[in-house]
């Protein structure tokens, strides 16, 4: 109820320059945003980004931070965006070199601490990749072992496969790719691939996941059935991103609604209300 400064890292609202935009798939693109100011973030945290100049669209859009690095006095923030509506369409067509406002870092990220004796399981579905890839690269840098599961609708929608592979290889982990249509990797849902590995005896000390709600629901069921620790990054519609509108609430097991922008967007599955594993 009181002051949330995004943990230890100070939130800032900065004017950032669109330094680059590259297509990742027919629907997704990468944004590199630059500023001379310092910003830090942990995987799972997000930013609120302005899109468009007028009052329509009115609100900022929530986007997970896919990476952040500072070099030679410039902070580079990486976003990965899927065009799904008007706001993301405007972002896709924003001029490289023009500026946006980025309010970040917001919310709480994934728990990256290693778990004695096991490795972590990272699971991304579709445009759920950015926080998961960010986590993978941070874990790789700290030499914490993990397997990385990445699913998409089709082969063309698998994003940044080489970086995913490099991160997993760096810690001796597996990269498991799946597509709903079987056009690349294993055929079927990414949660099914995970389940097969679990059934085959693979153990994970903690699952970290982001993706569409049906995937997260499947994962929640799986984690609860097998008593696995799991953290999910949820996507609720957000107006403010900073805990004052109460638009983005998630129902917890105790019946409370909490602001996912502030207490989340990453939630441990055992805190979530039953509607998350219907």
């Amino acid at each position, binding site marked *: 109820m009181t002051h949330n*400064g995004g943990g230890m890292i*100070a939130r800032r609202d900065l004017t950032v320059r669109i330094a680059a935009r590259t297509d990742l798939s027919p629907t997704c693109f990468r944004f590199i945003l630059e500023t001379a100011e310092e910003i830090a973030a942990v995987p799972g945290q997000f930013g609120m980004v302005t899109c468009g100049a007028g009052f329509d669209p009115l609100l900022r859009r929530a986007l997970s931070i896919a990476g952040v690095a500072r070099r030679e006095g410039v902070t580079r923030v990486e976003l990965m965006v899927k065009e799904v509506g008007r706001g993301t369409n405007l972002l896709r067509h924003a001029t490289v070199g023009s500026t946006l406002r980025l309010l970040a870092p917001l919310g709480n990220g994934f728990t990256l601490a290693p778990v004695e004796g096991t490795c972590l399981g990272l699971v991304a579905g579709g445009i759920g990749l950015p926080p998961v890839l960010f986590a993978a690269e941070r874990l790789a840098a700290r030499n914490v072992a993990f397997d990385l599961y990445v699913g998409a609708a089709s082969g063309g929608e698998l994003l940044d496969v080489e970086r995913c592979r490099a991160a997993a290889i760096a810690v001796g982990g597996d990269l498991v790719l799946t597509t709903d249509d079987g056009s690349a990797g294993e055929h079927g849902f990414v949660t099914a691939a995970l389940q097969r590995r679990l059934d085959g005896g693979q153990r994970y000390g903690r699952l970290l996941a982001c993706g569409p709600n049906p995937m997260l629901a499947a994962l929640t069921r799986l984690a609860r059935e097998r008593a696995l620790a799991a953290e999910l990054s949820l996507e609720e519609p957000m107006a403010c991103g900073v805990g004052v509108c109460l638009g983005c609430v998630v129902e917890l097991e105790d019946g409370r609604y909490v602001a996912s922008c502030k207490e989340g967007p990453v939630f441990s599955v055992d805190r979530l209300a039953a509607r998350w594993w219907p």
Partner: protein
Amino acid sequence: MSIRLDTTVGALKLANPVLAASGTFGYGLDLLEFCPPESLGAIVTKGLSPRPRRGNPTPRIVETAAGMINAIGLQNVGVEAFCREALPELRARGAVVVVNVFGERMEEYLEVIGRCEGEDGLAGYELNVSCPNVTAGGMEFGHDPAPLERLTAMCRAATRRPLWVKLSPNAPDLVATARAALAGGADALTLINTMRAMAIDADARRPVLANGCGGLSGPAIKPIALRMVWEVHKALPGVPIVGIGGIETGRDVVEFLLAGASAVQIGTAIFRDPVAPLRIVAELESFCEEHEVAHVAELTGGLQWR
């Protein structure tokens, strides 16, 4: 030139006329590094009820053209938690705090006020009689002059602090409800709350919001809010008005002041820009400098009809 930004709403003196609106600034402590509550004329708390409320199921918000619809359902921590957890820090910071009060029955309003009367450092109350989201939550008070007058009079009897009544733009007769609030002893009128509105998901053939309908806010409603402020000011000259609805800039504030407001509240703009209320104070000051307005209070009601 040094501009005087101070103003009064009835007997309440404010350092500047820019307030944070109820429901869009939490309990005043969520945006400390962007907009410290003590830097504003006042802050209005999220609507407080006697006991904590869960609010509505999700989805609760949907964006519309230059606006948004919300159906939060008045989720709040309850007056007790507010007084214990947020108020001490607000007080320590020197913030001017107006408590936004609502209840499903008249007694609940009194419960909230009763609890707050035991606390120092509260500047006044704003009665939310106009929330369109909770069927039982104030709708009838805000729409019907007689019960509104009764409610206001009961609350008036319970406190000597400034008492504002926040009017509903959905009321059948705005001026009649304004008169009723005044007859009940209100010191000032806040207008407007959100406008009843709806968004439909054409694919799903359902309302977008879990609650079905909700309240429209943001720049879309500004021209209507401005008209309502002017209408009430014309009908009831001299009555202090706190203007609200779609304000995004210092220039917007000037428009509301000219239409008859003594102060304004910033709501949805905070969602786009966490520093909005402070930025707006600065813009207002620049406007006054450029237009040689020595004291911002001179603007109130200064509209010349053509």
